[in-house]
């Protein structure tokens, strides 16, 4: 079955319709030296790099300022009544005001100690992320390091389902529950099934998982930081200076 009848071999000429102009020229410039190829790419790369650096010089300060502003707003929101704050860095479970020489500040987890106008410490804010229903939920929250009382909460990043899970930051009733000085640890409960215990948070109907993630972030976050903060003796380590 596989034998073909004897016929003349068919000549197939491949015509590339997309390159009618360049095809005849190809043999002439077939051998382009490797040097030229490398040089072309190197020049193009250098020009591209230069352009990017120039624009970066211009945009970087704007971007940094925006980020700092966002952070400042978030800290002010989760520590109600704060007038200024200092940033502390967590290095090997100890808190320091300055990062070690040669290290980048963003490599360390940070706590923001907030003071009111008279210089009295209000509480500490810090951020933490855990995986929610869709992706990591990043939350910043403020609390009193001594008592562990929660002062405020704000969702920084979340990709939770629009209309359901995103109520963890869009539903003001849910968010407000984290500002009423609740005792920790918190417990997410179904709406209406509360027993009047101090740490109860009404979960969002239909978004139980997202609600529980926020609660879990805060519980784990406070547990994680409270010991470190209490050991650090904040009054001593933090000089009372205006930031």
């Amino acid at each position, binding site marked *: 079955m596989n034998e073909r009848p004897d016929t003349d071999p068919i000549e197939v000429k491949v015509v590339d*319709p*997309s390159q*009618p*102009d*360049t095809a005849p020229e*190809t043999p002439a*410039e077939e051998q*382009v030296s490797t040097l*030229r*190829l490398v040089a*072309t*790419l190197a020049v*193009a*790369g250098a020009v*591209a790099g230069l*352009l*990017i650096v120039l*624009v*970066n010089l*211009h*945009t*970087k300060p*704007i*971007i940094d300022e*925006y980020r700092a502003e966002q952070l400042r707003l978030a800290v002010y929101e989760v520590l109600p009544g704060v007038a200024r704050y200092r940033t502390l860095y967590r290095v090997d479970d100890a808190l320091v005001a300055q990062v070690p020489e040669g290290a980048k500040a963003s490599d360390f987890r940070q706590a923001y100690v907030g003071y009111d106008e008279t210089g009295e410490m209000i509480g500490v804010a810090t951020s933490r992320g855990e995986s929610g229903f869709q992706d990591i939920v990043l939350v910043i929250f403020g609390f009193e390091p001594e008592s562990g009382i929660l002062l405020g909460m704000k969702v920084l990043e979340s990709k939770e*389902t*629009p*209309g*359901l899970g995103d109520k963890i930051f869009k539903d003001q009733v849910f968010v407000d529950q984290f500002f009423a000085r609740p005792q920790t640890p918190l417990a997410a409960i179904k709406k209406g099934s509360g027993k009047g215990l101090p740490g109860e948070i009404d979960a969002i109907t239909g978004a139980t998982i997202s609600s529980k993630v926020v609660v879990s972030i805060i519980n784990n976050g406070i547990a994680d930081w409270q010991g470190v903060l209490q050991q650090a003796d904040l009054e001593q380590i933090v000089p009372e200076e205006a930031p």
Partner: protein
Amino acid sequence: MRATTPSQDFIRGIWKENPVLIQMLGLCPALAVTNTVKNALAMSAATFFVLTCSSVLISSVKNFIPKEVRISSYILVIATFVTLADMMLQAYAPVQHKELGAFIALIVVNCMILGRQEAFSSRNTVYRSLLDAVGTGIGFTIALIMMGGFREILGIGTFFDISLFGPNFEPWVVMVLPAGGFLMLGFIILGMGVYEQRKQAREAHGEAA
């Protein structure tokens, strides 16, 4: 290659050879970030910028680029402009930049842009390449705004953040999720197919009469 006039170069990409709806190129951004008109517009603007700049640059230096490294060179040029667009958006439209996230950086691999370089800019004059890029960019923008508009209306009940149905509107959550992107693209292409079919039938009928 068929010879085209400059006006054809310009008009072609807008509708007849619309990059998203007809050629099915650049679907990744068209599906991923078009859940609101604003996001669609930001994405279109960034893509438009990258496409136009790359086309002009590549068509003006096309004679210096050896054939062997042309794709790498195109990618280099495109990546440069994408990085510029990324930084500029981050500085001047931080909210939109956060919404679009990684998809700005992914413009680099938008095959529509690379496709225009390989198919057009690398063998046409700067002027014609500019026309082609602007036309294609407009076509891309139209497609994205159609997607974003319908998805925002159904998925959030607003158009360009203006509430259309009042506060009681029940959002179709699926429409702002990625699945809604696929559905909406399907709906739009279905609608266009039906329209084209009707038009052809009418023309055939008119000729016969």
